[in-house]
């Protein structure tokens, strides 16, 4: 896995405002790739998809791209109400095919897709798994408006009718109970209506309870039944008691309708499915996944017939096609100031945005790579790489080895039209090794250090340049001077190794890691256009294992005047319009106001090779070398 870098959003910080330590699994929820982050200009803060307020701005069908008005979305149950259906078996979209003309067709496989001409019984056909709706007993007279033709069965689905009946059953009693409750609002105020209804039923049975609410004690229940105060709902005739057995609920379709024949048959069918006989006999294979007579749970859940027992069946044959679920276009707002972060164009076909404040336009983009990993000299075999290396070897080749140090590169690119000065520091969840520079203004991290005190120290140390460095402003390609051309040209062939060997470390510590690269570099390696390449180094300790991950605080300073935010806003909101940007660069340098922005990132440099794998590989290697020696001698 190549090294990755993710950016922190402040919505998931620890108490002290720092992100969780990188080795905890919850760290994955606090950091996001840069392209999924937004930037709120009002709050001057990064926002992520987990904290932004989402508004649905439009619905459309992903299959036919019809924009569904939100008024009908609810009634159509968030699904396409036109001709789009999903295969219940493989969730591919289905196409409508007519049945064949009367004359027996030969085996020519020419399913005529959606055509108005064709034999009337149309059916749905899956191009992927060859499911067709005839199996499910669904055919259509017309090839259009299929959903409408099916609507009837959907609306009169038994579970809805049953729910309606249940509602009609409970409603009167509830209303009555509520009325009664309001009449003598007492200590039962906290009861919910259904409890109140039940309690009224209870109190009818037990006279002593009836007057516990303090009204006319001493009268018998019978008298109260006759001489009801006018405002009081009569508990006599017409009274709906929730617990009255006389008004017991009679379902439309009850569970054991049909005497349980269906259920027993299902069990029987399931028991007899499969193969019997010894090992040697030819066994019909029954698959549960995708093909086969039994529908998997996910298929059944997808087909949403799960809710009603009589229609719920394990058989694949009984699966019904589902209408394609709609998608939505969402606009997002900042949770704090409710300013819009991103807003799409409403047309379903459009992939553009009306407003787009993505973090990539504000924060420097960072790329990480490890130039030397993958060429571990210890694992390198002379002339043998092309041969099939074992899986372990392949894995180990991309991992770091314990007891070595590796240089890594951080490539900063500046999206702003101002130059920025970047300063890096490693979050203090790492051992305070002498090699680890701690920038004085790193916020104190009591939470981390506390949890870290008990946790094991990370088995590696990170070195980063302590001084701040400059990243040139962003400019269009044609604005660069000619003399930069060769440097830009270099970018292509810098490759993995080249950069490091060509630019010997300016501020590097020069420690020898034992690898073939002589010059270890910690510091600025290269600067061109709006990109600056920084070298760092990781020293893996002898007994290191696991992943090398560290939290890095990036603080960058840029010049800003009063106009700056507005400029940035226009820039960002129209990132495609880069035409008018020429003069902004000039403007930016004019004022002396500087602003600093801090953000955390987590850098994942990859894994340290576990001991077993190394041992295995080394053993293999030794054997190989012995063999080689044998051959050559």
């Amino acid at each position, binding site marked *: 896995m190549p090294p990755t870098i993710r950016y922190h959003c402040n919505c998931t910080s*620890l*108490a002290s405002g720092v992100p969780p330590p990188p080795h905890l*699994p*919850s760290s994955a*929820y606090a950091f996001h790739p840069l392209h999924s982050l937004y930037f709120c200009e009002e709050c001057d803060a990064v926002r992520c998809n*987990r904290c932004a307020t*989402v*508004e649905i701005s439009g619905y459309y069908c992903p299959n036919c791209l019809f924009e569904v008005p939100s008024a009908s*979305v*609810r009634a159509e149950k968030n699904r396409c109400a036109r001709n789009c259906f999903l295969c219940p078996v493989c969730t591919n979209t289905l196409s409508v095919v007519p*049945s*064949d003309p009367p004359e027996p067709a*030969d085996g020519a*496989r020419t*399913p005529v897709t959606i055509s108005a001409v064709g034999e009337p019984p149309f*059916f749905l056909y899956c191009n992927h798994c*060859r499911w*067709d709706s*005839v*199996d499910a007993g669904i055919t259509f007279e017309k090839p259009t408006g299929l959903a409408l033709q099916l609507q009837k069965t959907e609306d*009169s689905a*038994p579970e*809805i009718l049953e*729910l309606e009946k*249940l509602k009609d059953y*409970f409603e009167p009693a509830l209303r009555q109970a509520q009325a009664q409750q309001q009449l003598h609002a007492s200590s039962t105020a*906290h009861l*919910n*209506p*259904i*409890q109140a*209804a039940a309690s009224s039923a209870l109190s009818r049975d037990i006279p002593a309870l009836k007057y516990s609410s303090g009204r006319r004690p001493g009268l018998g229940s019978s008298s109260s039944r006759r001489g009801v105060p006018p405002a009081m709902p009569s508990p006599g005739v017409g009274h709906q008691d*929730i617990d009255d057995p006389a008004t017991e*609920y009679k*379902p439309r*379709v*009850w569970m*054991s309708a049909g005497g*349980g024949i269906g*259920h*027993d*048959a*299902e069990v029987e*069918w399931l*028991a007899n499915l499969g193969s019997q006989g010894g090992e040697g006999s030819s066994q019909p294979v029954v698959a*549960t*996944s995708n093909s086969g007579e039994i529908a*998997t749970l996910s298929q059944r859940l997808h087909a*949403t017939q799960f*809710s*009603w*027992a*009589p*229609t719920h*069946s*394990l*058989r694949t044959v009984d699966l019904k096609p589902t209408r394609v679920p709609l998608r939505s276009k*969402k606009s997002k707002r900042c949770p704090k100031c409710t300013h819009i972060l991103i807003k799409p164009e409403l047309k379903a076909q459009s992939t553009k945005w009306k407003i787009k404040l993505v973090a990539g336009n504000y924060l420097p983009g960072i790329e990480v790579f490890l130039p030397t990993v993958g060429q571990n000299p210890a694992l390198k075999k002379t002339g043998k790489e092309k041969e099939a290396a074992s*899986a372990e070897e392949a894995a180990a080749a991309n991992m770091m080895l314990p007891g070595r140090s590796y240089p890594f590169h951080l490539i900063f690119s500046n999206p702003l039209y101002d130059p920025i000065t970047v300063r890096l520091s490693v979050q203090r969840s790492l051992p305070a090794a002498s090699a680890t520079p701690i920038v004085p203004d790193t916020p104190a991290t009591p939470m981390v250090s506390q949890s870290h005190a008990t*946790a094991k120290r990370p088995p590696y140390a990170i070195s980063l340049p302590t001084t701040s460095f400059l990243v040139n402003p962003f400019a269009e390609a044609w604005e660069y001077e000619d003399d930069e051309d060769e440097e830009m040209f270099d970018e292509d062939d810098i490759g993995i190794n080249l950069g490091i060997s060509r630019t010997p470390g300016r501020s590097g510590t020069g420690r020898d890691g034992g690898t073939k690269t002589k010059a270890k570099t910690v510091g600025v390696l290269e600067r061109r256009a709006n990109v600056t390449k920084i070298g760092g180094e990781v020293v893996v300790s002898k007994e290191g294992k696991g992943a090398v991950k560290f939290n890095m605080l990036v603080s960058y300073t840029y010049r800003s005047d009063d106009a700056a935010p507005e400029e940035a806003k226009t820039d960002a909101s129209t990132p495609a319009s880069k035409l008018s940007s020429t003069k902004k660069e000039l403007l930016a340098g004019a004022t002396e106001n500087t602003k600093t922005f801090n953000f955390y990132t987590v850098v994942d440099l990859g894994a340290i090779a576990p001991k077993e794998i190394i041992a295995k590989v080394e053993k293999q290697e030794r054997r190989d070398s012995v063999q080689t020696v044998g051959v050559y001698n």
Partner: protein
Amino acid sequence: MAAAPPPASRRISTVIEPRPPARSSSSSYIVGSTPHYSTTRRHSLYGTEDRIIIDPGSKYWKVGFSGEGKPRQVYQVVQGDGEHALWSWHASRTPEEYEEADRMLSSRLQDTLRAVFFESLMTDPKSRKVIIVEHPLLPLRVKDLMARILFDNLNIPSLSFISCHMLALLAAGRTSGLVVDCGHLETTVLPISSSRPMYPLLRTTPRAGAHLTTHLRSLILEYGTYHPPFASLAGSANTAPRPSRVPLEILTDAFIEDIKTSCCFVGQPLDVSETGFLSTPAGGRDDRMDVDVETPVSHGQSLHASPPSGQRSGSHSGAHTPNRPPQTTQDFLSAQYERQSATFDFMIPVTPPPPLTGTGRGNIRIPGWVRERAAEYLFLGGDVDEPSVAEVILQAVLKVPVDLRKRMISNILVIGGTPMLPGFIPRLHQELVRTLTKPMPTPSVRSPKRRAYDPFDAVRPLAAHVAILNNPSPPPSTSVSSQNAGKAPAFAPSNMAWVGGSLAGVLKTGGEEILHDKWDEAHVTEPETPTHEVVTKETSMVLPDWTRVPMVVGAPHAGKHAPRQFGLTIREPVTA
């Protein structure tokens, strides 16, 4: 390949698919005469009238709008293989571990809840009231976190929690009954009388979905065979690799779940009486067999109440007790099961896991009896810690006041995902009856004088009244009260609670509503506090819960004692 006709060449008029008999019942699909949009028309399209019903499980979530007959989406929340469930009963050991687990839970809940609104339902949370179908033993921490995310992150206007048992009972059209929720982590039995859940009488057993999965995995490991694919395509059919034991790597959670949910079912009870086989192996687990049968209490009754019809072989207990004692109980059981099972074996194609290779896919053979008997684990007699499902129901009945017992036992409602196993509910009924009517254990040689002890002695007379409301295939009723059996609406057991929530949403009833304003009022302190905090500090608003005594409005909140927490040994509040 060539044999399969291209689909378009099908004559629709001629092709008549043989309909399986079970399908006939689905004709009711078209029966109704309700006009279009009968339900939707009555509710507003945009308004807050339709509430959002969330039935959050540790494994599956069901979400949808109130007033609809089924959830819009039912899906598994935890997709990765590493984690089994969103939350579990595992406790963390250290405070750091706990905090981390808490952060993980919170993050995942937040992602899941956001997905509910923005991906599943695609609706604006700011205008929707939410009902959460709450399991009575849902960790309070989960509840608190859900409330916090819903209010603070999603800005919903109001939230209420309603007990899932209560809702399921509503969906069955009742207000009294014994609700058995057999879910993933636990089986929970809760008696409800007059729509009052009797929480103190709650009984639970860990015999539920998660344990069943573990059990099934070990059964397949033990008795299944793996037929590897051919090593190369060159070999002839004779060189087929030999079947071997099932490699553990194949049996991922997803694979086991697939087998469990699609090819397992629950067979009829075996006629080997428990005492018959469990006392044969020497030593070990026979302590509970030491009871003997001197007291003929309700013996006559147990004779008269014959086992329900439909038992596979009619011979009675003891007849199958073998002469030779087998090695272990397990072997004996498997032999018994295998002998009596007529279920066919299954071959399931699997892709060989990385260390193994071959061309194409191998197969796993699952013996038929494993398919049939895996769920036996839920019904076999348990012990104090893990009673079987039938036993835990009877324990709950025992705890209920005497007057209500008959009513409870004849109004059993079974909900949850595990009862979706075909045959589960009829089998549960048989087990209940069998536990109540089984003859007293045979006299033990060791302690012939001891009085027989039957924990369910007191409820034995109720055997004739056992009725499961949503039994799809109830036995002929033996008494008036057992006529209830199978008379619940035909909602699937797994969705019963959600449907109840939908109903409660339409009826505008339900638990206490927590309004956003109130939530904000309680949380005005420290508006900038990040979401992750030490637990004891942040719960300034006390969510209503049955474990917390309802207090008069305005009563000061005793913030001293830490709330019941999930996975944490209760610590003192961290005070600076």
